[in-house]
């Protein structure tokens, strides 16, 4: 098992119950959709994986290590195993495509030789060849999200977490991004994607977990038809 949630609850200081007794297991190599209306707890759940949020109760394990009991100094190492893709891309506007992706390796202290090799590799992987010197403002939404995905991939993560990665994109571009995520998953990376785009989920034939008001209301295994 790669990820395990045991009776996880999250209550915010203002009293809002974001997650209510969630137990969940995710295998290596899985592709998992987290679905549910806004405020169902999807974002809270994925943020716990990279320890931006801590649960109020319960335990979370990644590769058999407790995320909850982890010391502050161990968090960077946890996060280097996780690639994160954001709805709003979170690219640095003053950096080019190449620099935005290289940034992820620079900040973990990679050598410039390794950076050059790997960045060129992931740029090809996400189909951005020729856009290396473009700034985010010069790219389309879909291209910007490809930069975001490339950045998440550079450090060879165990898991790729995507929180509404198509939320700001039109339907055609969304399908292209999904295709890219499926390819990444086929190459062996576990992918967890939070979304409320039913159209994308329906046609995918992957495992789907439905959240409502902080609870899991359905866990459809892959291949099962999801309506």
């Amino acid at each position, binding site marked *: 098992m790669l990820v395990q949630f045991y009776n996880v609850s999250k209550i915010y200081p203002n009293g809002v119950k974001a997650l209510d007794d969630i137990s969940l297991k995710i295998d290596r190599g899985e592709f998992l959709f987290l679905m549910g209306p806004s405020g169902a707890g999807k974002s809270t759940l994925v943020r716990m994986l990279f320890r931006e949020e801590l649960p109020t109760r319960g335990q979370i394990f990644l590769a058999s290590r407790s995320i909850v009991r982890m010391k502050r*100094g161990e968090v960077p190492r946890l996060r280097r195993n996780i690639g994160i893709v954001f709805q709003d891309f979170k690219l640095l506007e003053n950096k080019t495509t190449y620099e935005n992706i290289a940034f992820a390796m620079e*900040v973990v202290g990679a050598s410039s030789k390794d950076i050059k090799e790997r960045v060129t590799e992931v740029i090809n992987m996400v189909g951005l060849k020729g856009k290396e010197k473009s700034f985010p403002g010069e790219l389309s939404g879909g291209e910007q999200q490809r930069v975001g995905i490339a950045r998440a991939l550079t*450090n060879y993560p165990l898991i790729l977490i995507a929180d509404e990665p198509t939320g700001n994109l039109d339907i055609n571009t969304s399908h292209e991004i999904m295709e890219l995520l499926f390819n990444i998953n086929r190459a062996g990376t576990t992918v967890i994607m939070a979304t409320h785009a039913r159209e994308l989920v329906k046609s995918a034939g992957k495992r789907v977990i439905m959240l409502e008001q902080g609870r899991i209301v359905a866990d459809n295994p892959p291949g099962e038809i999801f309506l």
Partner: protein
Amino acid sequence: MRPGSIIYFLREAFKSLSRNRLLSIATISTVAISILILGFAVLLTINAGALMNYLESDVEIVAFLEKDLTKSQISDIKQDLTAITGVKSVNFVSREKALDKLQESYGGKEYNLKETLGKNPLPNSYEIKANNPHNVPQIAAQVKKIDGIYKVNYGQGVVERLFKVTHWVRIVSMVFIVLLVFAAVFLIATTIRLAIFARRKEIYLMKLIGSTDWFIRWPFFIEGVFLGAVGGLIAILILAAGYGSLINHMDALFFLPLVTDPGILSNVYISLMICGAVLGVLGTWISLNRFLDV
């Protein structure tokens, strides 16, 4: 730390300095003004301290001798005086010398005091200085007990008040400087927070990608040291120029002695410059930590 990282930190620090030019200038100005005010207060304190020392060192005991003492009795008294603990120097002032001094201080050559008085009314005396001026009252009490001395004078009452004043001047100026340092730290931290706030997205990303706190801190610290040192340098240049011209012009105007020892002054200036750099780092530290809590 790998050498590659050090190059990365330096490059990032100076890239950020030139990219956020306006905020860099704002920070340098803030540091310069803070250090200027601080330096002004330090110079004031040093001069006040020197003045206090000067006033205190002027405190001495005058012991008047009885009229008909023999030469050997007079030198015996000197030995007794020297034997008192805490006495720094004992200086004999003969009646004639005392009259000369009086003549000098009253009117100089215009009046002939000796002629007016006819006979010299003044006694022989000893002037006694203490190692620590604060011990003067206790020493004076012991001097009074010696045979052959009929009166002891050290500015009773005034001296005690002087010491009270100098004590308070020293405390107040120290408190003032400490308060100024706190104000400077707060001011600089606030300015640096603006610079860091402009880069909060970058810091947040670095944290989520798995960069360590120190990896994020180093470029900011280098920036802080640089901005602080440049601000400090500007401040001490202004301060040194101002104080230098003050020394040149004030000599003729006031009787108060200004501290001009180049050793002391260069120490002050170097300390202020280091202070600027330290304030830069401290301000960065205070402002940065909250953004690292992701």
